[in-house]
């Protein structure tokens, strides 16, 4: 199968990933039916994950692995969880992608991986204090288009 990332892009990502300190674990959720972009999204992630030994990935099916999907609050395919990994422990920071991360969103994907690897949200103290005091869950859904 032809690769989705050409050598130039691969090199750019390699450079971007070079300073990564901590490990990142990507969970991919596909679906067998009615998922136009699942195969492409999975291949794209496989090519990205391959670039750094600090990134690992597991592949799930939204239906066959319904328990895991529910656990991670994933209800769309392709669905992607970008989590932290320390030894065998996976820590979920709540970072999700729903849909294929192409176009601008590909940059967001790479940046999210680097952000999770840094274990720092870069949010202000004000924001951190507010979020720490939350008593009810908050779901932020950022709608985007590929261009």
């Amino acid at each position: 199968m032809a690769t989705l990332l050409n050598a130039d892009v691969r090199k750019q990502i390699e450079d971007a990933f070079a300073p990564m300190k901590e490990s990142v674990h990507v969970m991919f959720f596909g679906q067998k039916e009615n998922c136009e972009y699942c195969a492409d999204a999975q291949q794209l992630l496989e090519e990205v994950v391959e670039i750094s030994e600090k990134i690992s990935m597991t592949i799930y099916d939204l239906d066959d692995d319904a328990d895991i999907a529910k656990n991670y609050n994933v209800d769309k395919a392709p669905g992607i969880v970008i989590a932290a990994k320390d030894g065998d422990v996976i820590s979920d920071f709540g970072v999700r992608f729903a849909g294929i991360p192409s176009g601008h969103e590909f940059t967001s994907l790479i940046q999210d991986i680097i952000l999770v690897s840094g274990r720092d949200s870069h949010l202000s103290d004000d924001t951190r204090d507010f979020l720490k005091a939350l008593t009810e869950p908050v779901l932020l859904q950022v709608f985007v288009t590929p261009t």
Partner: protein
Amino acid sequence: MVQAEMVGAMEFQELSMKHNVSGVPQTTINDGAANVVGAVPESNMLAELKRITAK
């Protein structure tokens, strides 16, 4: 406690329609409790979160 999901508006049109997405990025908080259009500064997003959670 906080989950942030990037949603492809073209791929999930039903959800986009439900939240009246016309410009991107649009951040929909808690299934429509608030909608923030545009890439706003962090302080604006925080203000919006404070507003809806204060209810």
